[in-house]
């Protein structure tokens, strides 16, 4: 009895992995199909295999996903040990070994990197904030709100939606204002409200950032499908097309 009460189900692992995002695509690695397998023994030894769309996917982003998966799985109550393995990648050995040893990126790629990946992650969170701004503003504009009115809006005045919740989460992660009284349109670097004259350009930048991320996600999904015939754990079908 005691065993079954404390053992960790694979669904708990999958739930933990759903919190891990591809920093470039701003989507969970589960829904993208990057989780090839995840399992946990009765004793709490967790094993996760990750896969990516190509052999040459950028090693810095690959490292972040493996490291984040390691952290997320390790934090699941009842998990005693964690092994995360990136498959079929040119830097698999370096990344898997570096993450297992908790070495950090710079030591994992000794001589090839000068620092950790915090700045890189923040840069892509800012892109996610821009893309999320388009996701939130586009329906408002379509419903007849004019851009000047958007400028005057606070987050609390936007009707609740999944994109709005997501935008708030990304802003929180960056330390940007995300409360109800925070302006909807802010500079993702300074956190300051956009000036009136800059609104059209800001919205255009938000739009192209979203298009860029979504087009990349489309290509990545297509490449992954071509590379692996099986679906990933927790993979969800593409929304487009």
């Amino acid at each position: 009895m005691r065993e079954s009460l404390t053992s960790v189900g694979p669904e708990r692992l999958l739930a933990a992995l759903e919190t891990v995002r591809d920093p470039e695509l701003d989507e969970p690695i589960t829904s993208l199909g990057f989780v090839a397998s995840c399992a946990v023994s009765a004793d709490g030894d967790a094993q996760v295999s990750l896969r990516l769309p190509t052999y040459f996917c950028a090693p810095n982003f690959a490292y972040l996903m493996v490291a984040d998966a390691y952290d997320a799985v390790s934090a699941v109550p009842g998990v005693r040990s964690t092994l995360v393995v990136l498959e079929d990648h040119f830097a698999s050995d370096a990344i898997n070994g570096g993450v297992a040893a908790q070495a950090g990126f710079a030591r994992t790629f000794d001589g090839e990197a000068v620092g950790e990946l915090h700045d890189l992650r923040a840069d892509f969170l800012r892109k996610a904030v821009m893309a999320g701004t388009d996701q939130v503003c586009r329906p408002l504009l379509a419903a007849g709100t004019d851009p000047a009115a958007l400028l005057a809006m606070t987050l609390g005045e936007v009707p609740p939606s999944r994109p709005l919740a997501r935008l708030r989460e990304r802003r929180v992660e960056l330390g940007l204002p995300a409360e109800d009284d925070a302006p909807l349109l802010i500079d993702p670097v300074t956190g300051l409200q956009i000036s009136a004259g800059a609104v059209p350009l800001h919205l255009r930048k938000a739009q192209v950032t979203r298009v860029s991320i979504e087009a990349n996600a489309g290509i990545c999904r297509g490449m992954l499908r071509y590379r692996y015939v099986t679906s990933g754990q927790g993979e969800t079908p593409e929304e487009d097309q």
Partner: protein
Amino acid sequence: MYESNGEKYFVVDGHMHYWNAAPDNWVPGAENYAEGWIKCFHAYQGLGPPETHWSLEHFEKYSEEDLMKDVFEDGYVDVAIFQPTYLKEWYKEGFNTTERNALMGEKHPGKFVYNTRWDPRDGDVGIEALKRNVDRFGSKGAKLYTAEWNAGSRGYKLTDPASYRFLEVAQNLGIKNVHVHKGPTIWPLDKDAFDVADVDHAATDFPELNFIVEHVGLPRIEDFCFMATQEPNVYAGLAVVIGGLMHARPQFFAKVMGELLFWVGEDKMLFGSDYAIWEPKWQVEGFVAWEMPDRDEFADYPRLGTAGKKKIMGLNAARLYDIKVPDEFQLPAEAGTPVAGA
């Protein structure tokens, strides 16, 4: 030449290859990389129409006859621009070198433009090789792959001091067009390898050179677009955009085209098939037939008309490379002249 609805299009394929990625060309000890590279390319082909997919074996090494048929006989291309990629750490004779391209091309006079390349980490030896290639093959353009591995280094930036030295030499040798291709690695690895900020700086500091950003900066279209609006000598190479999205993701294709037309404009966009990743035939036919969807979400994008398609299909590249275009393909005067090359 492609003809549709009574309109004639002069087709310049601005980005194509003649590679050998078969096992006989793999460097011992680097087989995983050589195989991984070509399999990655092969997966990209999977984004094109199924009837255009090749076997991996054919894809690794195709013949001169295959290329001539696919690109010129079936593919409507009038002039094709070779973009060499060396990768000599993985492929014994290089993936596709200036020499390999030119040896094939010289049997077909007038069909090809031979771009060369350089690697700023090669120092004086690289400078001499560049001079020889320009002298021997008449190169007016160069393709730079910034993620190339070289003696333990995983890449470079255009703003590296050594890069500026090469850009100066190249300009003095008469190189006009620099095609920049970003890849997944760079030094240092903790930076975003796809960042195009270095192209921005180089374009400002070398205003007489044209910088064609291949794959329109994919996966950083937004960074590329912001930069291209500010730099008059920066162009969009459409390889991968058409091949990778037009068939597989038509909605995203329309949106990416809309963004490019808005930020960059039809005067600064160049067709490239990326052959042999994708054959030009379906790309030319599909692009000429393509229209921006008539729906609300595409309403604020510029439209692309016949004149714009003619520019993108060939007239813009012809201007950059001084390729003679017969009168029947030229735009009527009121359509405006395509982009003036620097």
